[in-house]
């Protein structure tokens, strides 16, 4: 397959890092299409034409009733089956910040295996930062051993900004959290700039997530949700963000992985 894989970027009222995600995926080699929820609602078949799905950051529906909740409701109400099929087919899906919150609240992360069989109550959530504030700052991330296709092979730290007020990954019980860890589904963690564990120390772990969880994936590894914004550090050269220790452009690695996976899949499935 020499054709560029099509990356669909899901847009809803209040989503605001759609252009950033589009820029990063394009830079990584995808052909990008921003799709509004209303368009998808009218024609859920659009999803079948994409090989990557990105749910970007922002304040969908102004974060009313909790970050990502109403965007998750859209997915559940209008195209749950189509999105589930996309995920089950192993196509790369990434939810960044508000997109991560949306995937978790829609029950798509960490995945069905972690949903109770009997009811609709979730076991995981992204809640208010421990210090109760929205904060924008640069953080250092480490890719952990996990099945996540987006972070495979990333040895060097990824440096990029966070900008959120509800990024603390919480479970309804310690056992649920440990099950997640045991399955190696923690794909990204916050570290000190030196690469050592942040040990929940603010500001390196900006939101107080237990085990410094910055991003998690599903057991299959094709769906990644993360709070930080690698899409805002993809440029190198004079136009790129430069400060000492800033690891210019290191966010691009994730998107390259996602695009490469989509290309490989294309080669396998045609």
């Amino acid at each position: 397959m020499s054709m560029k894989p099509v990356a669909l970027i899901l847009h809803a009222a209040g989503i605001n890092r759609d252009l950033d995600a589009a820029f990063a995926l394009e830079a990584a080699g995808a052909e990008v299409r921003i799709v509004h929820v209303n368009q998808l609602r009218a024609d859920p078949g659009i999803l079948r034409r994409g090989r990557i799905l990105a749910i970007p950051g922002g304040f969908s529906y102004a974060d009313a009733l909790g970050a990502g909740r109403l965007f998750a409701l859209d997915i559940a109400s209008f195209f749950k089956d189509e999105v589930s099929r996309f995920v089950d087919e192993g196509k790369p899906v990434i939810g960044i910040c508000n997109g991560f919150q949306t995937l978790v609240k829609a029950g798509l992360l960490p995945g069905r295996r972690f949903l109770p069989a009997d009811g609709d109550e979730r076991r995981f959530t992204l809640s208010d930062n421990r210090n109760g504030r929205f904060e924008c700052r640069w953080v250092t991330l480490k890719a952990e051993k996990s099945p996540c296709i987006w972070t495979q092979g990333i040895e060097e730290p990824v440096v990029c900004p966070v900008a959120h007020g509800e990024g603390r990954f919480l479970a309804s019980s310690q056992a649920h959290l440990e099950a997640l860890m045991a399955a190696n589904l923690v794909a990204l963690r916050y570290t000190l700039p030196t690469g050592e564990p942040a040990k929940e120390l603010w500001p390196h772990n900006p939101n107080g997530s237990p085990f410094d969880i910055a991003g998690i994936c599903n057991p299959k590894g094709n769906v990644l949700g993360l709070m930080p914004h690698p899409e805002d550090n993809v440029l190198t050269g004079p136009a790129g963000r430069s400060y000492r220790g800033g690891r210019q452009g290191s966010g691009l690695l994730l998107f390259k992985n996602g695009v490469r996976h989509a290309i490989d899949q294309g080669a396998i499935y045609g």
Partner: protein
Amino acid sequence: MEHQLPVHRFTIRELKPGAKSSALIVREAQRLGFEGIRAVVRSEIYFVRGNIAPEELGFLGRFLLSDPVTQTCEIHTLPLTPKGKDYVVEVAYHPGVTDPVADEILRSGLELGLRAIEAASTGVRYEIGCEKDYSLSPGDLDILASRLLANPVVQRWALGAVEPAFPGRNTEVPREEWIPIHTMDEEGLAELNRARRAALDPEEMKAIRDYFAAQGRACSDVEFEMIAQTWSEHCFHKTFKALIDVEKGQAGGLPGQVDNILKTYIKAATDEIDAPWVISAFKDNAGIIEFDKDFDLSFKVETHNHPSAIEPFGGANTGVGGVIRDVMAVSARPFAVTDVLCFGIPGRGEGTSALSVEQIRSGVVAGVQDYGNKMGIPTLNGSIHYHEKYAANPLVYCGCAGIAPRGAFFSEPRVGDRILVLGGRTGRDGIRGATFSSMTMDGSTLETAGASVQIGAPLVEKKLSELILSARDAGLYTGITDCGAGGLSSAVGEMASELGADVELSEVRLKYPGLAPWEIWLSEAQERMVIAVPPEKLTALAELCTANDVEYCDLGFFTGSGHLLVRFNAKPILDLDCEFLHKGMPRRRMKAAPPPRLEDRPEPKPLPGSRTPGIGELFPMIMGHHAISSKEWAIRRYDHEVLGATRLGPFSGRDQTGPSDAAVAVPLETGMRRGVAISNGFNPRYGEADSYNAAASALDEAVRNAVAVGADPDRIAVVDNFCWGDPLKPGNLWTLLRAAKACKDAAIAHRTPFISGKDSFNNEFEGPDGEKIAVPPSLLISAMGIVPELGAVRGSDFKRSDSLLYLVGEFAVVYEASVLMDILEDRPGLAAPAFSAAAPAVYRAFHRALKAGLVAASHDLSEGGLGAALAEMCLAGDLGAEIELEGLRASLRKPAGPEGEGSEASFDGPAGQALLLFGETNGCLLAEVEKNNVSAFERQFAGLPLARIGKTSQAPLLRVCDGESLLASVSLEELRRAYLRESAEILGQAEPSLAIVREANREGR
């Protein structure tokens, strides 16, 4: 029979209540004297009205309104049975106040298939926890509620369960009223002016009467209200256009008469500079300049002071929203927001306002945060200033920059084009905001101005901004403007000022019924734009609106008659000649005279040498002063990375904690070869001392900051924003004229044209003993410059040890009005630094050096002088420095201004050393130059003032020598603690965060 429908209440509590206790509220409660309060725990309340089945209610609570992982949900159907819960205050909005969450509950309820939900509203519950044996009376709780938990302007409260507020179901359609103005005498006119809070002059009232008398008819309230707002200071800029007689003008270098400040000084500078790259100046909603051969940039800065004084969150929120709409109104994509905020000094000189300085500050910052972040526009640059004369009248300057393809902006509606309102619905929000902005505040402002307050809904504006860009690219409109002060009357009125229009007000979509026609016409409900659409494009536009969830209504059309005709249910209720409306206002004639204080002002005093602390002691005092200390507590609440175009954000350096001089953005659609610098210049202490030098300093600082980050001095445009007291006081007008003259002089010297500007008057409040306190003359100059080569963006952080440090520019330090003086003495300054004639040449040479790659780090000298600039560069780069004063002293020229009396000898001794390090000057920059670039760097400054003052060092120390003697050796740790202390205190942290960051970073060097 809607009112008989049951109302259900959902109370959402945190499973771990500690998470929602507000430290700020607890601190403020203790400050109010309730020292036994230990926790104030917040829960959310939602009300829905409708016949909803119990299982549906359960589903709604569990699935939609609460998060099962962290929250519990209690459901009750009203009325509640009172419970003996100890100390509870519940707060809800007044009916009709914008409540975006309630709107989302209605929308998502439908999405869930719960069609029975007929109305929704929200509230907040506060449970107050006290020390054992500490008790609160109902009176105490009312004080807490009115001062801390609710803002009476938009909210009400109950001790215990609050009743939900649903907008009224008033189906009676109010009518217009007719005012017999054509027969009124002067007394009658004065009474009308008062009763309708029109804030017009007697001459203006007479002109309105004469217009209607000539027609022999009464005027409708719609007509009167529209004229009052069109002629308001806020909309018409009466003072800036007035004919002013100047008493003792020559004492201030002013002529005996000034005919129109705007033309005489501000536009005159733009005309004289005549830069070919200025595309639109003072014509449109925002100024426009060229970016490159394909794109144009737009820039606008505004104030929202009065609304922020009475409702800080809403005022700042809608201030940001409003200025973003200005950029949308020139069909551009907004890509950066700036904010400059001025507050009183906490704990000092409070006004009679019900709100404390801290409450105003935290509300304003939260308001800026909420709007900018939710719009997805990075807040790239700004500053926070403190002065006791801002205590009850904060200044909230909001700016926005946009980008658009060349030629994308035009606004030429044609006869027959439809007039469409897009975006939010119209309610009673901000009624008479334009006239309110033109009045002085007093103790009763809070009560009477209730309706003037606006609450923002950034989500609506976000959708609107995306829609406008799509409509622009599809060529669906011929004209566009935003609804700001004066609402539809102003937007439609201006757009139809030549063609005339025929408008039907009953078409306007309302938030709730019951608005009188004049209220619909004048409402300042936010998030609305007016566009002119050719009839054949209506269908395409309607489809676009549906796809983007944006509401619109079609009000009428442009007629070509030159008359503005407004109807309500087909009946004409306003028929005005556009010529009269826009040009019929009698010219204001005003008087300026030197303020009494200037007449007998004492000679500036020298720095009190004997009492001056040592340099080592002064450094942390300077770095901890509120003019210099880190504003990280606020800046990090703004998203400065969204859009991925931030090349240089508010922070510089390895820890991203040093202050940047200016922001640089590289809009992604432009090919990323050049950038846009955005900067500000502002100093209230200078303004109070000398408004001429202050204005010149503000312009120089804005330009200097832009140059420091790589902007080409020949491609910088500036924007002015004057905030002054009552212009009817001749002394205020005198300082205003002096500032305006300085704007012209400095802009021409720098060749930086003004492209836009604003003025805000009557920034006064009632002090504790009843006297009026005016803000210090406050001029913000904002600059936008082109960065032609991105390699020239170096940041303010030192990059390596053993680089050389150069001070470039005319070093003419002043003690008066400096931060140093503010630390040493409790009095206002009597002088401010003068404009440096060498600065234009110095900045051009500096730009050449930056472009040639000869500068490793650059920073401008401003508040705190050389010492503060040096310390900030050390902190940002986490590297030390050594400087030597004797060489600097030798290279000094005689300082300008009143201090010129002092000889160079005054730079000797402790006082002289302090002045060299912390005196303030214009026109200077500090540069780190690596050794191998030294001679090339020096060559760039041939014939210009330049001094080599020291070098950088690996040791984390700032060392100052004078000749052979070591004056001070201050550790960066000590400087850092001082620099971060205020921020840490505001955040309620025991220790400045950066101590931790730096420890963790040590190894990573």
